[in-house]
């Protein structure tokens, strides 16, 4: 039951990631939501091994690093482009 819930949560996060149209920060938020659903899934998996949750902390650390990288890229984008709108990404095509 929790397994199905985490899969639904993952797909909802994925849809929300792909459908954000205006701000980049919302995309980063839905990325964190996806990571949270995967964290729940790892919890479920590790609970089959007599509740050995040590690895989930390592996973959480790596995912938080990734989220922090996203935020620092957001800051870099605001320094160069001035805002975080998607429509201001037109330099490259």
């Amino acid at each position, binding site marked *: 039951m929790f397994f199905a819930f985490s899969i639904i949560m993952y797909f909802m996060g994925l849809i929300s990631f792909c459908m954000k149209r205006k701000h980049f920060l919302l995309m980063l938020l839905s990325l964190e939501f996806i990571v949270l659903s*995967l964290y729940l899934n790892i919890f479920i*998996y590790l609970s089959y091994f007599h509740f050995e949750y040590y690895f989930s902390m390592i996973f959480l650390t790596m995912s938080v690093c990734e989220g922090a990288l996203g935020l620092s890229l957001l800051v870099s984008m605001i320094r*160069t482009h001035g805002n975080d709108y998607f429509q201001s990404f037109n330099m490259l095509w």
Partner: protein
Amino acid sequence: MFFSSLLTGSLISISASSWMGMWMGLEINLLSIIPLMNSNKNLFSSEASLKYFVTQTLASTILLFSIVIMSNNIFMVNQIKSNLLLIFSSALLTKIGAAPFHFWFPEIVEGLSWFNCMILFTWQKVAPMIIMMYNIEFSEFSLFTVISSMLISGVMGLNQTSIRKILTYSSINHIGWMISTMIAMETIWLYYFLIYTVISLNIIMIFSILNIFYLKQLFISMNNNFIMKFFFVFNFLSLGGLPPFMGFFPKWMTVQNLVESNFLLLSLMMVILTLTTLFFYLRVMFSTLVMNMMEINYLIDSKFNQFWTLVSNFVSIFGFLICTLLFNFF
């Protein structure tokens, strides 16, 4: 500093004993290439690094999803496992830029310096491809990936004037060849990748010394230094896979092994579709060789660091002949 952790991340990913270790190596790789690509002072590189981050983290989360579900192997029927391996290999193909998932690749390469392009074309492909080699299961999906890589790189490279985009589409083509080597015999993947890396390094080294990004900068570029001009042209011919040069060797091995494994139609399609990439390499070569305008206001004459570029280009181009000669002595 970030360069060493880039190398370390890929090596962790290759030599991991569990899927989580492999994922962590990919994350370390991404974390260390983003500061290399990013620059606060340049619009192109900040946008390129942002888009690269978005696509790569999406691929990482899809990878993690398939890993975690495959680990909960209470539900493992063979059909579910092959579908999950499809999701797994789709995520890895997105990471390297193979063709159904290649749409991020030209835009991002357009915004990078030549050094970062070189990393993106060569080293970033090592870890996902080796992981794919450990886990691939031959299916119609891998054939579809190979053929669509060839098609898309051939057709979409035809209308490009930016040299970075031309090299991107040639990279997608070579990714198609490399995936097809995983079907037949995996040691050929190593040869293909090494030779492609050497040729790419030579080409990108010449471009970065001359600081050239577009086709119209080529025909005034090496007029005073005809050895470098010839080596440049030979490198492009080698990249296209023509016989006296080293680029022919991996394609020959690939086609031979595919034919011995009875993939005749696949090898025929691959050879035919590579000809369009050869066409746009020839266009680049004509831009350097043939056109010589005498009334140019801005003559540029770059000094090459003669010795190492000569040695490296010589090895890359004539290495094939020397290899076949060496067989006489051993």
